[in-house]
């Protein structure tokens, strides 16, 4: 019930921000579309009652995102240099990276962070490790990915009860 109220409020706020047109008729249409969305959400919940585990702290996640932005800048520069140098990258590698996150959302954050930093892509995700493809594999890459893994694990609040 509380989740439903939060969903309605979130949809109303989203609609008001996206619309920018506050006439009575348009507002009625907006309300109707919110109700339709809630109806569909409720229906889909009966079909698939899968609960998403999201035991991550808000401030820790924001702190992590700032760190991630710097990582993205650094690896972007590295890949840009490879592209503009004209050399064909011949040091590609496919390797496994251990993932120590417990909840699904943190795993998604880690996998997407690997893909978002240019030069590495998560190819396959298993329960406790990811298969990663690197464009230009260097010795320090494993340590860098292990650090990222530790930082993503740190954003979890820790009260996930085996929600894999």
């Amino acid at each position, binding site marked *: 019930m509380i989740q439903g109220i939060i969903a309605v409020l979130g949809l109303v706020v989203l609609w008001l*921000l*996206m619309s*920018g047109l506050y006439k009575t008729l348009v507002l009625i249409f907006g309300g109707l579309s919110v109700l339709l969305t809630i109806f569909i959400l409720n229906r889909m919940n009966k079909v698939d009652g899968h609960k998403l585990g999201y035991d991550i702290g808000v401030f820790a996640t924001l702190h992590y995102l700032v760190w991630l932005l710097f990582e*993205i*800048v650094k690896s*972007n520069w590295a*890949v*840009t240099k*490879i*592209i*503009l140098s*004209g050399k*064909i*990258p*011949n*040091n*590609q*590698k*496919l*390797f*496994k990276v251990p993932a120590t996150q417990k909840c699904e959302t943190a795993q998604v954050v880690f*996998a*997407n962070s690997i*893909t*978002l*930093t*240019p*030069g590495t*892509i*998560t*190819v*396959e995700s298993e329960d406790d490790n990811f*298969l990663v*493809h690197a*464009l230009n594999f260097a010795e320090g890459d494993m340590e860098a990915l292990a650090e990222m893994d530790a930082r993503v694990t740190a954003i979890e609040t820790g009260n996930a009860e085996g929600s894999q």
Partner: protein
Amino acid sequence: MIALDWIVGITSWASIIAGSAFMVIGAIGTLRFPDFWSRVHAVSVTDSAGMLLLTLGMCIQGGFTLITVKLVLIGIFLFITGPTATHAVANAALVSGFLPRGADRTIVSGEKKEIIKPKATSRKRKPSKAKK
């Protein structure tokens, strides 16, 4: 007030131009790299740096309006869906048996048996000669 306009103009255009440059660099990399696996990496430059800088520049141009709110939402959605789409493409390539070429062929072929076997039943159309 005029000074503020200058600052807004310079920062926004600097980030828009930088973002466009990263977009072009990503396109150059996509054309220049030899095989599928390295091309995916070139695309991720456009996905991260190009997209972020262009959105940031447009946000600064928009100022404190609803346009900026929409741009921020677009940026958040692309920030999440971009890497997910890249992962989907790469995973589809791996599952259909298209493995990367490179120096570490032994490791790759060692991984291949382990990963591809359970999913091999799901592919029907593609024969084993996965060559681009």
